[in-house]
């Protein structure tokens, strides 16, 4: 059974349609990346899943429970951090966790466990107002993990974390998945984060899902690649590049030609240039596979 399922979800805010028909599903134990630029509709989608706002049409099911009709049952299956984790600043970290533990009827043993997992044991008695952003992020994660949810929802979770914090965070999420078989829904605009963590990635822009792809060995299968080439810039060279069969598009950026071509065709491009006596100063693959896809789908292949 799918843990999360969105079917044709629409949402208007004011007159603007923010979400224009989203379909996606997440299986058990899957780590799902939700990738898109700022304002694409990532947080709005998450707010609908969590129940902060209601979809205008379409339906959202969590472990088979509708978020509108069976809101409580659906929410009891998820742990979420929406945007920045906002806690009660005038309460200690522990008091914040206890509030949630009480509502969800979670024994204190689990609370202590979670505090250890996110590595906050020493500062858990301090007021949240005195926490750094990184500590707040970790406390937010603790709140989300508290109920050992079937679905963990994280909205741009590494915002404000330092590099070692990001590595710790990745470890915590991966462990949670391994130990509790939790599915994870991560929204992000940081490509490397998604690449290193997720099994599947969905690209969203203007409220629509542009593509859903699976990531194997930290990369996705692309049909094209972008190559930057520095050659002595002559009309001849440009013409030549355009004539090559595998090349789809050529544009100029400062002293480089940016070439979009079929995957694996870079060798052929260099060969053609050399055969035609053009001096090649530099050639490199501009984007790695995920970046390539992101630029294609989200930025319209610019």
């Amino acid at each position, binding site marked *: 059974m799918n843990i999360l399922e969105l079917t044709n979800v629409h949402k208007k*805010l004011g007159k603007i349609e923010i979400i224009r028909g989203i379909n996606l599903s997440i299986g058990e134990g899957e780590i799902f990346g939700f990738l898109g630029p700022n304002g694409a509709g990532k947080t709005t989608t998450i*707010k609908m899943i*969590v*129940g*902060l*706002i*209601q979809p205008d049409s379409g339906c959202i099911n969590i472990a088979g429970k509708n978020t509108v009709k069976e*809101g*409580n*049952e659906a*929410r*009891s299956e*998820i742990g*979420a951090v*929406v*945007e920045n*984790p*906002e*806690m*009660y*600043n*005038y*309460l200690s970290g522990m*008091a*914040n966790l206890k*509030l*949630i533990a*009480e*509502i*969800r009827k979670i024994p204190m043993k689990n609370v202590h466990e979670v505090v250890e997992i996110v590595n906050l044991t020493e500062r858990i008695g301090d007021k949240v107002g005195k926490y750094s952003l990184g500590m707040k992020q970790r406390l937010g994660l603790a*709140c989300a993990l508290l109920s050992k949810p079937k679905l963990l929802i994280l909205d741009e979770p590494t915002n404000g974390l330092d590099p070692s914090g990001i590595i710790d965070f990745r470890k915590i999420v991966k462990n949670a998945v391994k130990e509790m078989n939790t599915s994870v829904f991560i929204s992000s605009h940081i490509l490397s984060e998604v690449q290193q963590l997720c099994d599947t990635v969905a690209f969203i822009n203007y409220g629509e899902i542009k593509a859903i792809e699976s990531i194997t060995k930290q990369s996705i299968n692309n049909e094209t690649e972008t190559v930057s080439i520095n050659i002595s810039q002559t009309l001849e060279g440009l013409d030549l590049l355009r004539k090559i069969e595998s090349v789809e598009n050529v544009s100029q950026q400062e002293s480089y030609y940016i070439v979009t071509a079929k995957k694996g065709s870079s060798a052929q491009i260099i060969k053609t240039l050399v055969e035609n006596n053009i001096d090649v100063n530099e050639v490199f693959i501009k984007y790695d596979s995920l970046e390539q896809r992101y630029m294609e789908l989200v930025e319209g292949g610019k």
Partner: protein
Amino acid sequence: MITLIRQELYKLFMRKKTFVVLIGLILLTGFITYGFKSNAENMKKYDTPEFQIENIESNIIYLETEKNNIPQDIESDEVKTSEYLEDLDREINQLESEKALIMSTIGEDIDWRDTLDQKIKQQEKMILEDGANVNASELAQMNLQLDELQYLRDNQIEPQEYHDFNGFIFINQLISTLGQVFLFIGIAVFAADMVSGECTPPTLKLLLAQPVSRGKVILSKFIAIVIASVSLIILVEILAFIFVGMIYGFGDSSYPSIVGTAYQFDTSIFLENGGHPLTMVPNSGEIIPVWQYTIKLFLIQGLFIVTITSFVFMISTLVKSSMVSMGTSVVSLIAATIIFQFSALQRLGKYFFTSYSSLDGLITGNIAMYYNNPSMTGSLGIIVNVGWIILCYLVAHTYFIKKDFLI
């Protein structure tokens, strides 16, 4: 649900602002207590025989000097001049005899029971002699006064003077005074961020992402703030009552208080402005012991606190920012109090709860006199308050469960 209410109360009492408001209330109560006490002492000074004699003596001196200041228009007329002087002499004689009377009482211990008996006899005589000449309303008032005196005699209670100060007098004055302004501002400050405070910073996101229904969240917040505001205010008042009572005595708990007086327009009399004067409805007043009066006052105050809290709570739900919520609450409460005092809007005013801030008037029935409107009674006040509580909560509840939280 009980867990949620307990959590809301816990959050409320962990906030600094709760203590700031509480300390404010305690200080205010302290100032008011001091004010009442020094006021009572001033009045007591005016009531002493020494002060009264002093007063009479200075009056006599003034009249003596007047003898030399014969007005110019009668100076030439000998008859009028001698009349003028005779008048002054008569007044002086009268004052002298008053003075002698007061002098004779100094040091003499008159039993209050004798004075009381004498007052009762006077009142009875007045009713017998003038009863036929006055209208029904005035007669009813005279009878009520007689009842009050007889109640004192039957229960062997010494009549209180205006300058007396004790626990019961204090607490009843305190509740009436706090009701005028403090309840509005204090509760607006206290309750304004009950919901809006969780939007900035948006901690509501954390709460609403839990498996609890929004209806339960908003209801538990409402119950928590109502419990907190009613209990804090009444607790401080009871402590002040005990404090004052321990020092100055509590007074006789069965001292008579007149309550439930109803009023009507006397249509037989026309005033200059074309209206009619308000008169008491015969047999409408009732005498109850002061402890009962005080309990009624506490209950009506409790109801009034719940109403203001509900109103502020509603605004707090409708508005995202705590500051805006607090401002709107204070301004609308004060504005409503002022606006409905204009005669043009007075007819509407009786449906707005701010018009019932004279809590003692609701119990005595004098609220009708304050607004010159006989339809404003204690029971209407209660109905209007309950109506507003229900209305405010329903608005808050409906809005909250349907709202999209884009915080």
